[in-house]
């Protein structure tokens, strides 16, 4: 397994989503990128919808330290313990899974395991996964802390990067969305404005 793409480890899990902690502070995958869990017979695919960085102890909030520093980088250099006291996490909404080389665009039978490794998907995997727009249905119906149109447009922008002709991919995706969101034209137009190139 290519370790350079390994982004973190699952620390909280449910059928519909999971939270992974990054190995290094602030090293989360970009919003909307496609990630997967590995090492199990069933590989879960998901889209990154949120990222946070906070103190490792819930009751202990970070304090401002930069009064005498000239740059933000300087704070971390003078207080090297910070990288151990803080942690970055990202949340992933599960959008499908792979079993026996087949990709399914619906929820897996079981959730991810705690400590499961989370990897960024390769360009090939993204292409294979996005052959069907089934994941859009899951994103539209999800109730997340981030606005749905933001998440959908971010994920489509991310996925389109791996295509030689991103325009036709986005056009096809837009048409699919137009069908799915035929009852909500405002949301449709808001997404379209965010994915146009």
């Amino acid at each position, binding site marked *: 397994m290519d370790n350079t793409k390994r982004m973190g480890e699952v620390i909280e899990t449910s059928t519909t989503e999971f939270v992974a902690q990054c190995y290094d502070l602030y090293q989360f995958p970009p919003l909307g990128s496609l990630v997967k869990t590995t090492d199990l017979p069933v590989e879960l695919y998901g889209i990154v919808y949120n990222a946070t960085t906070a103190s490792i102890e819930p009751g202990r909030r970070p304090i401002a330290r930069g009064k005498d520093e000239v740059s933000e980088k300087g704070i971390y250099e003078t207080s090297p313990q910070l990288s151990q006291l803080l942690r970055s996490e990202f949340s992933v909404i599960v959008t499908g899974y792979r079993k026996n080389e087949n990709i399914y665009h619906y929820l897996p039978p079981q959730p991810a395991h705690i400590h499961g490794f989370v990897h960024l998907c390769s360009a090939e995997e993204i292409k294979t996964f996005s052959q069907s727009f089934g994941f859009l249905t899951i994103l539209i119906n999800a109730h997340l802390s981030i606005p749905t149109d933001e998440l959908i447009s971010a994920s489509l922008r991310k996925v389109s990067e791996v295509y030689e002709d991103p325009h036709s991919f986005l056009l096809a995706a837009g048409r699919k969305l137009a069908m799915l969101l035929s009852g909500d034209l405002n949301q*449709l137009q808001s997404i379209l404005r965010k*994915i146009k190139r």
Partner: protein
Amino acid sequence: MTEGNNLNKLGIVVSGSLNKGIEVRLDSATSIEDMVVGRYVTIQGNKRRFLGMITDISLGVVDQRLTLTPPDISDEFIADVMVGTSTYGSLHVSPYLNIGGNIDQILEGPQPVKTIPPHFATVNMASEEDMELVFGKEDDKRFSIGNPLDMETKLCINLEEFVKRSNGVFGKSGTGKTYFTRLLLIGMLQKSKAVNLIFDMHNEYGWMGTREDGPPVKGLKQLFRSNVAVFTLDEENSRRRGVSTDAVVRIGYEEIEPGDIALLQDTLHLTSLATEAVYSLRRIFGRKWLEKTLNLSDPEETKKILESSGIHEGTLQNLQRGLNTLNRMPFIETSPPTKTVEEILNYLDRGVNVVLEFGRYRDITAYILVANLLSRRIYAQ
């Protein structure tokens, strides 16, 4: 992600009925501007294939709000996405024939439709082969009348079958109704045994025809000299146009029967009582009823006749006014030298086609009178 590779696919059936036709929703890849009314399409059902014609084209939106607040179509991407998804084109197709299906249906050949395709059946452009299957190839009996819109296939009709039925040529002005009718007549003269009697109200079929964009075209007499006789109601007009006519139509007063007047009731503004009175007057005066009715001037005699027949005076006046309209037509004479009706029938019996030119008499009264007079006599014989 990829749409059907079938280049001819237009869309899918979304609703419809046998009577009112089928509603087809166009695929987003199909441009509505490429659709033309009158074009043939095939619809692939589960068990059979249907041939139909596009009769209407319309635009639709999935959400009416789009028509109130249209999307920002200055943005090319948004326009590309919306067209064909949120907004769409639709076709109205009238199904005409079943073509193909199982072996039995193929052997039977094209049959009139008795059912419609199911929901979401694929609609394609009719191919050249489909048209050939329906219209056949040109041969001894089939006559080529042109091509379908934007197609190379020849449309052939079986004229022997064609003349057995009642047919009409309809179309908007300037679309070639006259030209097409002449083509059908030429075909009938060439390939069928039918003899035609043509009431040529605008003098277009006998000697020379007009065309909206181009020089005049040859009429039937010029093309088939020995097979066509031209009769005219208006000799002077025909002579001026340089038409060689075979006979001049003259109608005697005695040839006009009460039944002919009954058909002219509306055109001559006759009351129903006046139409009834015609029959009484025919009984009283005999064959010369029309002439005698018009010449009734002696008040004593008039009174006597009115009393004996029970006709009101006003009714007689109404009738006389109407009959005077006929009297003013120069081709109606007291005692014409020849019996035109018989002459025309003689020609038709000999297998000669007759074109009856109306010359200047283009008003509906002359047309209804002459057409009815002749067709009633022909039918009676």
